[in-house]
């Protein structure tokens, strides 16, 4: 396999590992809380942050991380002000995009770099990117493990979790910030515009057959990994956009599992 001999491909695979784990794990909590669209909303803010970085010459990953975390906390704040979740996401969504578009028009267009951020690229992951993606990915996975009980409780039954004395405000903000970080982790490989499908697809695939919450988390991670690695292979051999390939694989896996599920249930 000449595949593994290329340094860029090795970097893409390592980054892909963190992308798959953080997207699919955070996705379980978001989908079950009916916040599936939040990934998409935050991705648009990330676009605004990227444009800011490219415009000012600051590192785009860092400016994108800053604006996205800020946007996530804004969504949380709007929700606490009794703005409906979908409306809060819609507001932040277009604000991010507006910022990006204005900056792009100010700069009279950007270089090719912006396109790779939008749709993901296996060539784009630099050593520095890999470091950032690795650190952020570890933060997301570690936080899910450390706060597993608390995140499960607020996801299943927020009111009872609150009544039992859990710090709901903190946990909700934590989930938002982790989602923002996940978007940034996925940005290089999958691209901001395709992140939300990789967050949602593994969970809805696994929900077709899983019984327990733990099972849902573990199998979602596996489906996430499978989608990312198969997608990266396809991107390498067919010379296509990595993000598109990964998301199409994840979609195909969902279709396959739902067909199998139907067949097995009919016979069983």
């Amino acid at each position, binding site marked *: 396999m000449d595949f593994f001999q290329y340094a860029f491909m090795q970097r893409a695979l390592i980054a892909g590992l963190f992308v798959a784990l953080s997207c699919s794990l955070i996705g379980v909590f978001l989908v*079950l809380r009916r916040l599936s669209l939040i990934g998409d909303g935050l991705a648009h803010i990330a676009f605004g942050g990227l444009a800011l970085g490219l415009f000012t010459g600051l590192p785009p990953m860092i400016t994108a991380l800053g604006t996205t975390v800020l946007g996530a906390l804004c969504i949380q704040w709007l929700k606490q002000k009794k703005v409906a979740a979908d409306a809060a996401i819609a507001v932040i969504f277009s604000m991010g995009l507006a910022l990006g578009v204005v900056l792009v028009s100010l700069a009279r267009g950007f270089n090719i770099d912006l396109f790779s951020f939008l749709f993901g690229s296996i060539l784009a992951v630099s050593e520095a990117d890999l470091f950032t993606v690795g650190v952020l990915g570890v933060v997301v996975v570690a936080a899910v493990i*450390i*706060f*597993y*009980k*608390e995140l*499960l*409780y607020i996801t*299943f*039954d927020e*009111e*009872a*979790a*609150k*009544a*039992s*004395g*859990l710090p709901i405000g903190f946990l909700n903000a934590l989930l938002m910030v982790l989602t923002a970080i996940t978007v940034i982790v996925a940005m290089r490989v999958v691209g901001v515009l395709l992140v939300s499908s990789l967050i949602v697809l593994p969970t809805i695939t*696994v*929900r077709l057959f*899983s*019984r*327990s*919450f*733990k*099972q*849902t988390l573990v199998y979602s991670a596996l489906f996430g990994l499978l989608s990312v690695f198969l997608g990266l292979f396809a991107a390498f051999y067919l010379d296509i956009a990595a993000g598109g390939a990964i998301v199409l694989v994840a979609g195909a896996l969902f279709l396959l599992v739902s067909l199998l599920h139907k067949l097995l249930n009919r016979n069983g």
Partner: protein
Amino acid sequence: MHEPIVEFQNVSFSYGSRVALQHVNAVINKGDYIGLIGPNGAGKTTLIRVLLGLLKPSSGNVRLYGKNIKEFKDWHKIGYVQQKATTFDATFPVTVEEVVAMGRFAFAGVGRPLDHHDRHRIGDVLKMVGLDKVADRRVGELSGGQQQKVFIARALASDPDLLILDEPTTGVDVRSQHEFYHFLHDLNVHHRLTLVLISHDTDVVSTHVSRLLCINKTIMDHGCSIEFLLPSHKHNDVKKNEQIFKRVRHKH
């Protein structure tokens, strides 16, 4: 003898301009089995949400176990079973055991997984409510009555002292209801749990509880008047309600 564990002192609460609770004064003592009754919109659930710290009263005080609610930290002592319909997504991938385990989360600190003792307690509670055989099933696959037991088991898993149940028999068939009240009686008498049962079904509740608290924005000082219990004033029902009162007073 009377050890007050919950004290409402002149508690009022409004949702915007709509008054839900007005100058509520009431005491719940250790060992009580209380039926909190009142018509729809009388503020039953609001009062409980204030007790649980989910809502802050606009005026007045709540004391729990002798402490001001702001200083109260032992929330595991208070088990709460919500009205099921409003809280539960039947397709959620979570097993009976996983839901009951949530009742132990208050003990295990952040970052600490449940230990041997927690697991043991979860097993005990599952056996107690008769769900040990279905511990690995998805909660959504169970019948309405069994699901209700799951949530009661979760509340019991936190070793509460006070158990509050909001309309617990909604959607549960009559036979299971009978069994259920028997179970509550056992909790109250043998496990020395203080119980608060919220209901609009006066007849059923009053046959089981030892004290009625009647609420319609405020607690009725002189017990529940018949008119209050019965907005429709139908003759037969008036008679029925009189009987209910005799029963409850007799127990007292």
